[in-house]
Structures are given as structure tokens and as C-alpha cells.
């Protein structure tokens, strides 16, 4: 079985080892007997509308604005999300899925309107380990690193991805946002390598059936160490 994953603008949105999320999807898919075709899309290229899974990473302010403008003009990502494709968006990618986010001069910049969220500035930049307890169907505590200045406010059509146990997340005690098959999060690290259940959830949405969880010792040991470090 083959699955197409689109890596959206990796040179603009790839600050925090974000390529690792694509690697993790390929790796987890292989464990489940699924082969992944990865398509890297750069600004100027048309975003394919028919893929099953889209990944956006983090980036600095000017790159984020450029990416948001190009994706709004392109239109395909929003149509794919509305059709039910799975989307993972991290940090700057998360913010630009919303109604608006702050640009380099803190001016509100229009996003894609895929998630019912609005982002402005935190009083102080959030840098450090982040741990959060997820909502159903996820059960394993989410772990990662955050580095952002955004305070993200959820509207009625988005649900929080998790409740913060250590770190800042959205800034109000919640972390991330989700609607249909779209997930936005401040976790990098990259989050799918550290949270394989999240990777499996996205892959399951993409192929249309639930995947059994397969444990890997290296990942379990890393998760235990990180959670012990931040939660004691």
C-alpha cells in the first residue's frame, strides 16, 4: 500500500529539525507495512490537492509570512483539509493555519483559516521542554520542545490537542488545536519521533483505518527519560 505525504515548503518551514516529522511518518508507516511517497513542495510549485497527508514545520517570522501568502494564493491546502486530508502543522506552520498570526512587526497577518485559532504575542518567549496530556483518541503524554512567542486562542470550532503539564503551549494551559483531521501543535523535537502514537493517528486518518500501536524500545526509553526530566 502506498501513501503520499506532502512536505509543504521545507526550506521556509524547517527550522527545528522539522524534516524529522516526515522521516518519522515514513518510519512508522513502514512498521505498519505501508510505503510512503514524500513530495517536497517549495514556494512557486503548486501544492497537490489529492495527497492523503500534509506536513508543515516551523520557521522564522519572515519565512512564515511568505509561506502563508503563498499558501493562501495557492488554495490547495485548504481544499485538501476541507476534503478530510490529514494535516500536521508545527509552530509557525500551526499559527499560519489559523485566522491570523503576528508578523515580524507584531502586525496581525491573515492565515489560511483552516483552524479556528487566532495568535498574538506571549508576554515572554516560550523556550523549553513541553509535556501535555492529550485528548481522546490519544492516550500517551505528548513530549517535545517548544520555542515560540505566540499566544494562541482557540475559537468554538477548534478543540485543544492537549492540556499542558509542563511548559507554555498555547499560553492558557492548553496545547495545540485540532479540527477534523487537522492537528496544529507547538511541539517540535520533532514531535512525531517522540510521540509515535501521534504519528500513527495521522497515518490512520490518511489510510482510513486505525493502526495498532507498535512499540520501539529506543523511543520508549527516550520518552521515559524526557517525561521524568520535566515532570519529575
Amino acid at each position, binding site marked *: 500500500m502506498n501513501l503520499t505525504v506532502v512536505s509543504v515548503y521545507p526550506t521556509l518551514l524547517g527550522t527545528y529539525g522539522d524534516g524529522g516529522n516526515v522521516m*518519522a511518518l515514513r518510519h512508522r508507516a513502514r512498521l505498519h507495512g505501508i510505503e510512503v511517497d514524500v513530495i517536497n513542495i517549495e514556494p512557486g510549485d503548486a501544492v497537490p490537492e489529492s495527497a492523503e497527508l500534509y506536513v508543515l514545520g516551523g520557521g522564522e517570522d519572515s519565512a512564515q509570512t511568505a509561506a502563508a501568502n503563498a499558501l493562501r494564493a495557492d488554495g490547495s491546502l485548504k481544499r485538501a483539509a476541507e476534503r478530510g486530508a490529514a494535516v500536521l502543522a508545527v509552530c509557525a506552520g500551526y499559527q499560519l493555519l489559523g485566522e491570523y498570526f503576528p508578523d515580524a512587526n507584531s502586525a496581525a497577518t491573515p492565515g489560511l483559516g483552516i483552524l479556528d485559532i487566532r495568535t498574538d504575542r506571549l508576554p515572554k518567549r516560550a523556550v523549553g521542554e513541553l509535556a501535555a496530556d492529550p485528548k481522546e483518541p490519544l492516550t500517551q503524554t505528548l513530549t517535545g520542545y517548544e520555542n515560540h512567542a505566540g499566544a494562541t486562542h482557540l475559537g468554538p470550532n477548534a478543540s485543544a490537542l492537549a492540556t499542558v503539564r509542563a511548559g507554555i503551549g498555547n499560553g492558557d494551559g492548553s496545547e495545540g488545536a485540532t479540527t477534523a483531521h487537522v492537528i496544529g501543535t507547538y511541539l*517540535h523535537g520533532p514531535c512525531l519521533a*517522540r510521540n509515535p502514537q501521534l504519528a500513527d493517528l495521522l497515518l490512520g486518518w490518511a489510510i482510513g483505518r486505525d493502526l495498532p500501536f507498535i512499540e520501539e524500545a529506543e523511543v520508549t526509553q527516550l520518552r521515559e527519560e524526557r517525561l521524568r526530566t520535566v515532570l519529575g
Partner: protein
Amino acid sequence: MADTDPTREASAGLRRTDRVRCRIGQRTGKVAVVTLSARTRAAARLGLLTSSLSRKMGRGEGMVIGGRVILRLAPDAIAEMAHDRVAALVSATNGKTSTTRLLATAVEQAGPVISQNTGANMTSGVAVTLASGDPAAQAVLEVDEAYLPAIFRATKPRVIILGNLSRDQLDRMNEVAMIARRWRDMLADATDTTVVANADDPSIVWAARHAPHVTWVAAGQVWTADSAVCLDCGSLLQRDDSTWGCPNCGFARPTPTWTLEWVDDHGVVHGPHDQRFDLPLSLPGRFNAANGAMALVATVELGLDPAESARRMATVESVSGRYAVVKVGELTIRLLLAKNPAGWSELVDVMPPAPTPVIVTINSNAADGRDPSWLWDVPFERLRGRVVVATGDRRRDLAVRLLHAEVDHVVIEDPYAPGAELPDGMRELAVVDCAATYTAFHHLRTSSDRQAARRS
């Protein structure tokens, strides 16, 4: 080499280079033109004393505290002590310590040279270095990227080498563009300095292209992820094997005067008038050949003999512990240091081919960067076909990265302990390559020093 006079280039360059040649020719150590004020002399003495006390108390090299004392007592000490004798400053995200050592060794052909031997490359380290040693010696100084503008203005170097810019620690955002902008402002009116700049790094070109005197060197760029976008207009740069340019505004790679070629595991530097210099360095890897090429061109700009420079640079075997072969516990290891994804990408290629096992040590103290997500930017896939020992505080992050890269690995807290369960064949290796982040590298260096001290 048919023509050994590279100064027959543009007339401005010729005048400039000849003047430099005269100056450096006059000073073989006997012409002491340095006249320091009583205040600076006293500050320098006290600063050096403080450094040496701090060293004796076992508090590192004492460069920072010594430099602070000097600058507190004599705020203009750097400008005074540097007066007319700074041959070159060297800055880059990666390779500045090695380039500085190579250049300092080459410039010794014209007389004594002072340079840092500890990598202390901020204001205080520069102050202590200038205060120590022969006050008439030429200075070749490594400078931290962020401190370069201030130290450049104070020291007025004859040559400045700008090697490369890439992300260093991820928690310092926007660094590359910000530093390129500050370097550009610094160079705008640098009429007395020749900039030796890497034409293959768009951020370096952007910073240096309006400087009054620039010599472009095609030294290569392995890591392109931090110069994907045009610094003028924000468009995505287009690249092929040999060149790059902006499709929107015309910002493009300048024509280099010097070009590094990598042939059979060593560098060859091609210059104007069919000049050709082999660079048979002892330091490994293409990136050290790039460092050597930049240094070689700098010696040409200083009016020195490039063939002699190449010969001298070949004698440099290790730089502040990098590439040094040391004994730690029961293993003899070659120490490899990398501080950021670009540096790690280069190191992966320096290691011996599979199936030779290697050690990789990852820490996440402040000096290493607290966030190890950069591990996912490093092409560890190139280590496939062997067993990698994952160690350091963040060995479990490394293990997960290696799992995804399909590289066999074992996680060992202390591979140097007696009885550690090392991969087959590792104990039998004459030298084991050990790549480490900054604090892990220094820990290994000091453990090996202690071990050597116990033996002697």
C-alpha cells in the same frame, strides 16, 4: 606554476597588496612601532596576572576574566594594542578556529605571530591575546561572529576572512540574516582592509559584496539550508552544482578569483594566471581544505609566498584538541568537534568508512544548545553499515535519530569504562573516531589530560 605574481590583478588591488607587502616585509620582529600608553600597559599587566592566577586556581584558561580586567582599566586597550599590527581577523560560523590556526602558522614565514590558542574569540579573549607575547608580533585573530564589527573597528586588520554563516544554536533566532546585515554595515567603509570572502555562501556574498576590496574564493558550501532565501528580496535562491542566484532580483554568485578543487582526498587551489597550489593538509576533510584555501588566499593578500604558506599549513595536525588522538580509559580516540548541524554534516564525512564502528557523543548543556532537535538536520544516514556507539547526556535522542536513519547502534552511558560492552572490533581499533558536541568534547579533552598527567 608559471606565474607567481597574483598581484597583477586590478590596479586597486595591486597598489593595496604592494603596500601590505612592504609593511609586513619591514617587520620581522625588530621594528617595534607599538607605543602603548602607561594606562594600557598597566591594564595589560594586571589582566595577564589575573588570567594566570585564574588558571593556577584551576578555573579554565582565565581569558575572560583577564580580558575584563584589561578593558575595565583601559577601555581603548584593544585599539591601542592592535595598532598597525593585525594581519588578519577570521570569522565564520564553522571553521574559524582551524582557519585561524592555519593562517597564523602560514604568516609565521614573515616573523613572529600571536594568535589565540584557546578559542577565546570574544572581546576579552582578543584583549588578552593582544596583551600577551611579543608586542611587535603580527596578530592573526579568530573573532566570534557577533563581536566582529566592534573588534574589526578597533583593530583595523589588513585582511579579514569571512568563511560561512549558518544556524548555530537554535534558540538564537534570525541569527544568519542579522549577522549578515551587521557585517555588511561594518564593511561599507572598510577602505584599508581586503575582504577574503567565500563566493559559494550567499549570506557571505550578501554581507561582503559592497566592500571596497573583496577577493572572492570559491571554497564550497556543504550546508545550504540557512541560505535558501535571497536576503535582498525573499525569493528562493536557485542552485546547481557550481553556482547560485536569485531568479527575481539578480543577486548572484560573483566570479571567484580563487577556486578550491577537491581531488583524491586533498585540496587544490586554483588562482589567477593559471596558478595552482596543492594543499596537502594534515587536518582531514574537504571543509578543512576550504579553511586552508581561505587562509592561503589571505597570505597572498598579505604579500606572502602561497607555496610556502601551503607547506607550513600542512604541519598543523590538531587545532585546540580537534583531531587530536588521545587516550581515554582503555580506548585511543580521535577527537572530532562539531557545534551545529552544518559542522556535523561535515564531520559525518570525515569518519572512516563502514563497517568501522564510531562513537557519537551528544550533550545539551547551554554551550551545546539545550534543544537537540538539530539531530534531525544531520545526515546520519551516511553512517549506515556500521555500529555507532550513542553516548552523552542525550544519547537516547541520538538513538531514536539513528533508528530512523537505519543505522545500527548501541546506547552506552560510559564507553570508556572498563568492561563497557562495545561493538565488535572497536577495542581492537588503533584509533576510534569520537565526534562530540562542545561540552562533551571538552570533557573528553580534560579527561585525557588528567589521564596523561597520571601516567607521567
